[in-house]
């Protein structure tokens, strides 16, 4: 019948509009600032006086130290989370014991706590512990909020790993330790990588957790951006810095999806 064909078409058009709007709005978060970073000038204005790449080079001296710190912290948090998280994930997936569910939920705890409250708690104790404006201080703050993502990723990898493989290695004479390094670790590699990349992306961009405990010596990029905004407002240079942050995050996400597999995205939020 003609009306159902029309209805179907209307339905398709509505879906098309909805999805387009949704996707466009979400991508605008990135593209607005990205476009703006190529504008000539030092203030926010449309239309721009011209286009240039200068903004990316002009912010080098100011922004790059902060960028380097954020990159370092991102990587370090990834490493730290792996060291703590892999054994924990192993114990949680390979053994049954009382309190396992409790510990499992507990370790996902940071997702149930507001970041600003936790950050406040750090503000209360870091001075006493001498961890204000320090590498380790920032590292621990970033690690506690990203650990659940590492845990979920690695636990998922362990669950997919057939125990028969580890048992086979043992029957062939491999000790527990050898089995772990020769068989288990290589096979959970993708899961670890996924957790690492997720950790990096979040730690690299994190703002709330470090807002109280950063300092002049250790000033991550996110705080740098906030300070810049406060002082100068939005400028093409500012936009360039933001664009760099987002491009790095995109690159990591790209690696995650391409190299490791789309399914790891499922676990991002939950």
């Amino acid at each position, binding site marked *: 019948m003609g009306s159902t064909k029309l209805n179907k078409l209307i339905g398709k058009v509505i879906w098309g509009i909805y999805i387009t709007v949704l996707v466009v709005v979400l991508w605008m978060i990135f593209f607005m600032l990205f476009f703006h970073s190529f504008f000539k000038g030092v203030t926010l204005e449309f239309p721009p006086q011209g286009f240039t790449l200068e903004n990316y080079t002009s912010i080098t001296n100011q922004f790059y130290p902060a960028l380097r710190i954020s990159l370092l912290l991102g990587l370090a948090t990834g490493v730290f989370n792996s060291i703590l998280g892999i054994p924990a994930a192993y114990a949680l997936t390979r053994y049954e014991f009382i309190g396992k569910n409790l510990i499992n939920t507990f370790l996902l705890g940071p997702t149930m706590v507001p970041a600003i409250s936790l950050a406040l708690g750090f503000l209360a104790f870091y001075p006493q512990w001498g961890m204000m404006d320090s590498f380790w201080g920032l590292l621990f703050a970033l690690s506690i909020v990203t650990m659940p993502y590492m845990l979920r990723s690695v636990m998922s990898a362990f669950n997919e790993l057939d125990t028969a493989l580890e048992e*086979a290695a043992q*029957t*062939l004479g*491999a000790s527990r330790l050898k089995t772990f390094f020769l068989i288990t670790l290589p096979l959970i590699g993708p899961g670890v990588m996924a957790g690492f990349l997720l950790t990096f992306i979040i730690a690299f961009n994190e703002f709330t957790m470090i807002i109280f405990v950063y300092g002049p010596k250790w000033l991550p990029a996110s705080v740098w951006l906030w300070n810049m905004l406060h002082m100068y407002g939005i400028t093409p240079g500012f936009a360039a810095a933001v664009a760099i942050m987002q491009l790095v995050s995109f690159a990591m996400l790209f690696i995650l999806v391409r190299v490791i597999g789309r399914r790891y995205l499922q676990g991002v939020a939950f």
Partner: protein
Amino acid sequence: MTSVRVENLTKTFGKTLAVDSVSFTIEDGQLVTLLGPSGCGKSTTLRCIAGLAEPDSGYIYFDDRLVNDVPVAKRNIGLLFQRLALFPHMKVFDNVAFGLRMQRRPKEEIKQRVTEALALVQMSGFEERYPRQLSGGQQQRVALARTMVTDPDILLFDEPLSSLDAKLRDELKNEIRRLHQETGKTTIYVTHDQAEAFAISDKVYVMHDGKLEQEGTPIELYLNPISPFVASFIGANNFIEARVVELNPAEPGKLAVEALGCRIEASTAEQLRVGETVTLLIRPEDIDATPVVAESPPPEPNTAIGQVKVSTFSGSNTYLEVAVNQHILKVSVFGAARFALANSVGQAIRLRFDRCSVIRTGR
């Protein structure tokens, strides 16, 4: 060459008693099968022997050496898994070489032994491939090579053929049998497939609900099952209520019972009394079936007349369900007679029973 002795092995999982005080001895060089349905405890027993599961109580001896506290890696066993378990991130060569590398053998020796092992399972030339590039049968062969190359004292097989199709299963079954004959290693095989067990084993242990029900050679188990479970698990069987009418003091294993409205001579391993109610076992393939033509001849022992209710021709045999005296008997007809009876529903038929055995009811 090692013998395996298991004494009172017990293992519980949560609330389930998986293995209930199982004891047996396997002589050096034997190929023995633990046979039973899923959940009977056969795999658990095997895993305890391998060291992958810890028994709650009981002892396991390799050659009179207690191995309860010996870790898996040190038991010098070879285990072939149901689920293959080839290392996906290693090539075929590295998979097979793994055990030898754990033993820290020199490189040349490893290369030589791996090549020999792959030749033994007819997988030469596949050294550089990855497991995912191989078919299921090929993977299982490589797994077999990996298991054998380290020259273990004992070989353990945990239902290795159940994930393969029928043709591959046959091929590999013969391969395993051949390898056992060539190497003479003590082998413990676990399966739920009775035909498989019979095809390769010297001795079969039938397990049920965590207990060892019966042990014996394939023929012993076939001819003289000692319980209804074994009787129905080994091949097909007809279970018929019967009453003992005559015992033979001169030959204690032979007796006569009344069943199906006639007198049937059978054998038994039990001590019975006249008048006792027992269960008569008749195998479908031990029933001789001929169409009834002329008048009924005088009743002979071990003969009955019945009517065909179901008849199915499946090529190598004809399967019949025959109503005799309020019982339905399953009959498998082989040989030339199977054609005549291929479509015999409704016909009258004469059945002659052979090799019947008697067991206590409800054991």
